[in-house]
């Protein structure tokens, strides 16, 4: 299986190298998105993620296929967490492995950039006295 697609409550960052490892891969690039403590100088207490799961999994699968078509990749991982996440928690992991490093970097960047545009997952920033759905308003 050359792609691993998951939506989970808790992301495991330990296993991703093993999942992307492949005898024909010389390069593995992984991106992890995590919760930052400050957004525009406001302290974030937590993030809340929700998803339309059946559609999100389809979009993530389509995204993996697009990367596999665009570059010669041996493995692709796309995982997203949902629920409440606190500072330093991992919220998304994307990665690709390939014979040479350029492909793995380009594919990894494509995966996270595209995921943010297309996959139906919504993030609410919880501050001390308010909460905001990110990107909802111009």
């Amino acid at each position, binding site marked *: 299986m050359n792609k691993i697609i998951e939506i989970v409550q808790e992301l495991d960052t330990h296993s991703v190298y093993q999942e992307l490892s492949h005898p024909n891969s010389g390069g593995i690039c992984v991106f992890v998105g995590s919760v930052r403590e400050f957004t525009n100088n406001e302290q974030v207490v937590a993030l809340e993620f929700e998803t339309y799961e059946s*559609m*999100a999994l*389809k979009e993530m699968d389509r995204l993996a296929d697009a990367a596999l078509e665009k570059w010669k990749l041996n493995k692709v991982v796309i995982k997203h967490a949902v629920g409440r996440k606190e500072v330093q928690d991992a919220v998304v992991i994307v990665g690709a492995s390939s014979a040479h490093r350029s492909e793995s970097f380009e594919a990894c960047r494509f995966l*996270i950039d595209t995921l943010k545009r297309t996959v*139906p997952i*919504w*993030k609410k920033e919880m501050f001390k006295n308010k909460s905001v759905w*990110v*990107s909802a308003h111009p």
Partner: protein
Amino acid sequence: MDLLFFGIAKDIVGKSQMIMDFGEDSPNSVADLKQALKKRYPEFSKLTSLAIAVNSEYAKDDVQLKSNDEVAIIPPVSGG
């Protein structure tokens, strides 16, 4: 018409799923549905974008809606 709402769309209508009766204006296409929603809930007009998914895929404005479709209201996504 049975509709699913997520993120801020859920907050706007107050529910994650509801059967909405548009009466005479019952929308036939995705474009019609967006219009009907914005008319009933002006807050939808203030969003950065508004998309509709039919059977868990993004649907263009000209897609026709059938009574047994799973229709979801997709406000601006913000994963990652």
